[in-house]
């Protein structure tokens, strides 16, 4: 069981720190690079939404993301005190439309849905609480033979 708590300010510059934390957690748990990328993207989209549209008071706020990974199962819980917003209530954009009709909205959340196995939203004690699950298998370390064969130094 591995856990990590990331607390971000409502400032888009924090996205770099979020990416670093996600990469660190993924790397120490041997997740495939592609999975780390997609998780980082999903959290980025959700946090960006909260920071960009969630607050109107111009004050500093905290957004927390709790990671817990146990037996190939990742649970992410994101909490914020922004105005009530259920990201999963949005309909998916139609990604088959031609350029002229393609809209701007909903793409970020769509990318989240395409990445997570489940996403649940709850408004609890004045906070948005988003709980997500994803099955992630550790990348099996290469065998001695395969390792030697791939060395191109």
């Amino acid at each position, binding site marked *: 069981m591995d856990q990590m708590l990331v607390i971000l300010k409502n400032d888009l*510059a924090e996205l770099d720190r979020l990416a670093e934390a996600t990469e660190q957690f993924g790397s120490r748990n041997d997740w495939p690079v592609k999975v780390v990328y997609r998780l980082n*993207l999903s959290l*980025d*989209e959700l946090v*960006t939404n909260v920071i960009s549209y969630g607050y109107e008071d111009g004050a500093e706020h905290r957004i927390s993301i709790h990671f817990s990974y146990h037996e190939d199962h990742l649970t992410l819980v994101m909490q914020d005190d922004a105005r009530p917003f259920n990201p999963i209530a949005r309909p998916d954009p139609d990604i*088959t439309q031609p350029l002229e009709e393609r809209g701007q909205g909903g793409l*970020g959340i769509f990318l989240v849905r395409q990445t997570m196995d489940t996403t649940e939203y709850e408004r609890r004690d004045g906070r948005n609480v988003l709980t997500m699950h994803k099955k992630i298998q550790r990348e099996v370390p290469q065998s001695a033979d395969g390792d030697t064969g791939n060395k191109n130094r």
Partner: protein
Amino acid sequence: MEILETKIDNNVLLLAFKGRLDANSSNAAQDQVLAAIDRGEIRLLADLARLEYISSAGLRIFMMAAKRLKPLGGKVVLCSLSEPIKEIFEIAGFVSLFPIHPERDEAVKSF
């Protein structure tokens, strides 16, 4: 995030993206791309070889540029996408919106 602009053959403006294109860096990137279009550049080649990361905020820039260029008879062509970047374009359904080439040379000739 950095975008290096170079005028190359075929009256093409090469835009070499470098770094992370997220909601924090996308406004400046978008301003730069749209400014190029405003100056009359209508053949844009975005080389994404050194783009490390893209979110929906970054994807929108390409869509916006393509939308602006279409009535002007111009286009946005993409090349040299790394695997994770290509995957995001695929999931977002963006591969049908732009011509995408694996190599830059080939992309230049396609205009």
